[in-house]
């Protein structure tokens, strides 16, 4: 239910600067941090202190392949894109080995097999730098806080929707519908009326109830469905409303205050 928190954080200035590690696991993490084959290539070029406009392709290719092998040895799943780049590098390397046509000196620049790769690297680097800029901005923004909740927000604790939400919600309904239809009713575990009663008691006793917690106490799909219908029913008929403290946060059932200031 809950969107999974991203586990790893990184620091542009230190973490990707070099690959040294005390332990295997640490090495694994650091190697896993390359955002893609272009990122790895840039790192290797920097490592060799090479000129990006004159990449020593043989050396870089060897280094690149060494890292791919190292990643495989460490059981890091190597994305297909890394392998595609390896093939590209090998191809460029072999082209560079072909004897040059002495008559085509003029076109040497044009024919440089590295040219396309260099263009891609330069283009990619701009966005990598832009990503760093975004990273810095978000770091600054994290030191700035909006006001706390005020009374009038309560009227508005609803979800603003995007087209993506619309589709996601629709898929969820379809999945739920399928489940309901295919479900066999084995036995009457708890009636809707009982479920509503117990739900109401708990909301009114505590003022609010986290739906996720409530659902987690239930054991069968039948109970879950009954509980779900009970929630919708109670929201419709009682002075209880559904709210989310934040987007994709848990959904809370909250008793509506009878009087508002």
């Amino acid at each position, binding site marked *: 239910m809950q969107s999974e928190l991203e586990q790893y954080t990184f620091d542009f200035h230190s973490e990707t600067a070099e690959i040294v590690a005390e332990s295997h696991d640490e090495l694994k993490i650091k190697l896993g941090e390359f955002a893609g084959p272009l990122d790895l290539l840039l790192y290797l070029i920097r490592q060799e202190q090479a000129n990006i406009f004159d990449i020593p392709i043989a050396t870089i290719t060897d280094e690149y392949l060494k890292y791919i092998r190292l990643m495989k040895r460490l059981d890091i799943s190597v994305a297909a894109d890394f392998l595609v780049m390896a093939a590209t590098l090998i191809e460029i390397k072999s082209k560079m080995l072909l004897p040059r046509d002495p008559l085509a000196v003029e076109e040497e620049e044009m024919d440089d097999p590295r040219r396309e790769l260099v263009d891609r690297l330069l283009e990619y680097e701009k966005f990598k730098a832009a990503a760093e800029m975004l990273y810095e901005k978000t770091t600054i923004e994290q030191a700035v*806080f*909006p*006001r*706390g*909740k*005020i009374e*009038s927000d309560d*009227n*508005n604790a*609803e*979800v*603003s*929707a*995007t*087209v*993506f*939400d*619309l*589709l*996601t*919600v*629709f*898929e*969820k*309904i*379809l*999945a*739920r*519908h399928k489940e*309901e239809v295919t479900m066999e009713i084995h036995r009457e575990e708890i009636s809707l009326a009982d479920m509503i009663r117990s739900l109401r008691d708990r909301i009114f006793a505590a003022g609010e109830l986290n739906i996720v917690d409530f659902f987690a106490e239930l054991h069968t799909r039948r109970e879950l469905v009954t509980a779900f*219908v009970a929630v*919708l*029913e109670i*929201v*419709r008929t009682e002075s209880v409303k*559904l709210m989310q403290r934040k987007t994709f946060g848990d*959904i809370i059932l909250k008793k509506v205050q009878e009087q508002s200031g």
Partner: protein
Amino acid sequence: MAETQTDAAGTAPAKEPRDVAELSRAVEALIFVADEPISTKLLAEVLEEDRELIVSVVEELVASYEDRSGGLQIREIAGGWQISTRTECHEDVRRLLKTRPSAKLSLASLETLAVIAYKQPVTVPEILEIRGVQSASAIKTLLEKRLIITKGHKETVGRPMQYGTSKEFLIHFGLKDLADLPSIEDFEDIAGSIG
């Protein structure tokens, strides 16, 4: 706690004391971000300062808000301090709250809208069939927000009214036309099932 107190003998506090302006800034920020009125006690704890000092800083702050006579005030309420709008502005505030963008939809409305968008034209019994719950009030809300419109009666028993999405719906969700509505396949290339 004891260390933060300087006594007459002049024992220095463990940490660098803040000047009053700095403390006042912190107090204002804390009152502002707190979800509920924040007590002097809690302020003193968070800022690791004497309660008396906090009281005087808060009072100064309250007075400065009064002097400024802007749109906000700091009030003592329910045993704590809170920033709120001044009563003089309530008429304007009410008017703002009424203009809330209609993009805000409850979960029930959103579900109903999703069914209508993807299954249109669709009748109330059909929506019930799919959602498994009554959608009457959601449909009313959506009609009021003009996100859906009626699409004539269905030629079947009881001739139920059919609903579909409106032009406003397209504008609202930034869609050129209904064919522009994403399908599940559109997101296939980004991590399989999104449900």
